[in-house]
């Protein structure tokens, strides 16, 4: 017996799949399943987070609906995955944020933006708020750098603590010994698998989305999104180092490293999320966990808005629009940070951990 109805269904499917095994070459989920004959809640949550939702096993399955065996692995694991994230949420009181995630994220984002606007307005006079500020330190006329650093540092720190606690819960659930952390080859393997999205390709031909014709569009847009996000994060890190190490203050000229990184990342973070959203809307409803559509869209929208407001700030930072745009951008980024542990962002973290475990299991099976 399992803890939830969806895990009962996942168990039923894995029993079907384990007596078939035709899909073992498609991704990591099925070889991981083949290592077991019965499935604990943790095993099923591990499979769920290992699944990249490429949909190939659904399209290739002779038992998918309308067949009476009704095998739909991608959708079942998608639901199980989302339920597992809520179960791992820290603190427990915030688990509910996953249930109405779209609403929660939009409210938090709106409130954050409003707080920054009111904060700027309350703490600065009109001339400063709508004034034209250029040159190093221009942003800090509206909000002192230390205040900005403290606020965002705290938000990020909180997100990190919550994520670590969540991962710890996942770790315990899947019964994975702490040994994973001290297994560099498995970590390296997982890193390669994650950064290449090795398992989002249906075993080599591409992801199945709106019909049985595989394509690489989801993978390409996911790459743009992920690497766009990474570049933007790198831009922030470089800027922080500039500030503290060589006392070089934002805003930076367009050719300077933080701006170059941020611009490239920002472009990726505009095209990628837009593409992912388009693919999501086209996706065969049979593959979609409709209840979590809001969560997916909210996260994609937040990434898109982060980039959009950042790019707008870059283009208009020498005009009177700088103050409001800065408030808007900071508001979006702040809400992105603090909601990270309670939304779609966590899929990357848990999937990475699942990939480490898979790499480790494979190595142990091979006797390495």
């Amino acid at each position, binding site marked *: 017996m399992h803890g939830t109805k969806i895990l009962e269904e996942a168990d039923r499917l894995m*029993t*079907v799949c*384990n*007596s*078939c*095994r*035709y*899909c*073992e*070459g*498609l991704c990591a989920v099925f*070889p991981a399943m*083949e290592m077991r*004959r019965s499935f604990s809640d943790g095993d099923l949550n591990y499979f769920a987070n290992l699944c990249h939702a490429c949909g*190939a*096993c659904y*399209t*290739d*399955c*002779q*038992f998918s609906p*309308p*067949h*009476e*065996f009704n095998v739909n692995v991608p959708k079942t694991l998608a639901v199980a995955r989302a339920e597992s994230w809520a179960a791992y949420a820290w603190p427990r009181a915030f688990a509910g944020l996953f249930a109405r995630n779209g609403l929660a994220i939009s409210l938090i984002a709106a409130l954050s933006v409003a707080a920054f606007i009111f904060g700027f307005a309350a703490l600065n006079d009109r001339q400063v708020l709508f004034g034209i500020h250029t040159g190093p330190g221009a942003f800090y006329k509206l909000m002192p750098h230390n205040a900005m650093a403290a606020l965002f540092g705290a938000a990020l720190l909180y997100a990190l603590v919550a994520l670590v606690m969540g991962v710890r819960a996942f770790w315990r659930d899947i019964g994975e010994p702490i040994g994973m952390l001290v297994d560099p080859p498995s970590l390296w393997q997982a890193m390669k698998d994650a950064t290449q999205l090795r398992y989002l390709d*249906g*075993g*080599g*031909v591409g992801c199945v989305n709106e019909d*049985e*014709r595989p394509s690489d569009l989801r993978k390409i847009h996911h790459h743009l999104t992920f690497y766009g996000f990474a570049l933007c994060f790198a831009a922030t890190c470089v800027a922080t180092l500039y500030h503290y190490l060589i006392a070089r203050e934002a805003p930076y000229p367009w050719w300077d490293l933080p701006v170059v990184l941020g611009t490239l990342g920002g472009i990726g973070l505009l095209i990628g999320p837009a593409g992912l959203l388009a693919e999501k809307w086209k996706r065969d409803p049979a593959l979609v966990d409709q209840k979590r559509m809001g969560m997916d869209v909210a996260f994609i929208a937040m990434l898109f808005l982060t980039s959009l407001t950042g790019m707008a700030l870059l283009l208009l930072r020498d005009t009177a629009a700088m103050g409001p745009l800065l408030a808007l951008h900071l508001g979006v980024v702040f809400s992105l940070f603090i909601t990270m542990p309670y939304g779609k962002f966590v899929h990357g973290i848990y999937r990475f951990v699942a990939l480490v475990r898979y790499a480790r299991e494979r190595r142990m099976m091979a006797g390495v």
Partner: protein
Amino acid sequence: MVDLSRKFDCLVIGGGNAALCAAISARRSGASVLVLEGAPKFYRGGNTRHTRNMRCAHDAATDILTGPYTEQEFWEDLQLVTEGQTDEELARHMIRESKDILGWVVEQGVRWQPSLGGTLSLGRTNSFFLGGGRAMLNALYLTAERLGVDILYDAEVLDLDIDNGMFLSADLKQGDGRVTVRAATLVAAAGGFEANIEWLKQYWGEAADNFLIRGTPYNRGSILKMLLNKGVQQVGDPTQCHAVAIDARAPKFDGGIITRHDSVVFGIVVNKHGLRFYDEGEDIWPKRYAIWGRLVAAQPDQIAYIVFDASVRNSFMPTLFPPIEANSIAELAGKFELDAAVLEKTVAEFNAAVRPGTFDHTILDDCRTEGLTPPKTHWARKIETPPYYAYPVRPGITFTYLGTRVNKQARMLMKDGKPAANMFAAGEIMAGNVLGKGYAAGIGMTIGSVFGRIAGREAAQNARN
């Protein structure tokens, strides 16, 4: 929409591996092609949906195959399983062509995978489709569509107009009415008649009511029957088929691969009277796999039970339906309404006859019984560790061997021995030419791909002349 008023160069009836290989091959040879698949889109592809691998000759190991499998070895395997009941010229031709087919299907978009799980010991002889048979079909359909092959689903053929070995047209069910489709050539690739219980009963009697059909419910043999009624020469013994023992709890149709059992070597098999009836240790997989369907079909009520104990519970592939469990043999008998005393006696006699040996299920080992009838000649170990388990099994029919006779060009032969003017056949509908009896894993797909490609090519050439 497909324009059915035009005359096609080639009409392919069927929608599985053989049909698609024929359609693609004909199209690549320049013919206009219409494929009529009787099933709805989801169920397209007949039994190919449930297949996983194909047996092809090859002279050296490849990325996906662990060693060479020569034409001669393939031929010897075929002779062994068919006990010589095969058309040697056709079979050797097929084996020769199979070497080239391995690469050809890849050119049509099909992908192979290395044999990962090792569920069958076929890594040397058989290539596995990445994602299974339905993945293979999806790739073939995409290629056919891209090449401009017209495809109709739910396209039931009601009649064929054949005049003295010359195909003229086919009548197709369309809503409440019918429409006539004309073509210069016909490729019949519409499978066997295993889903037609009434037809099976003609040869098997009432026993056929207890058969389970492993594949598509659409293989009713209607095209085969029409062809045989219109002068095409028949080949094969109508009672011969690919039949395995599958779980008695499986659905009547389309249970596919997951209803199989490979636990026979780990226990004993008894009938409804609680008695053993065949040597469970006679041969190794996959031959042993392919014989138990017919063995069970010959038992009263076409039911049997694979009985084993806790010591081997995890020694074979996991199964869809869990085994029935009991703490004693008598209790186990009760759960199947078998005579407890008889079953206890059967197990006790078996245990007493077991001689010690070194168990190895991958070879014909030295664990055997002595003084028991029937004997268990290999893998015999005592059944004495509770809990005890049993799977109920019934005959699971994969496909039938009765078919249309063809020559090396896949051209049908008429009753008078003359080749048909413009009619070709491929796949299960002509498998009986090669498979007089028995089965070797993956050979159905070889027949389909090889003769499909030939039929398409020949039909295209025929249409141009």
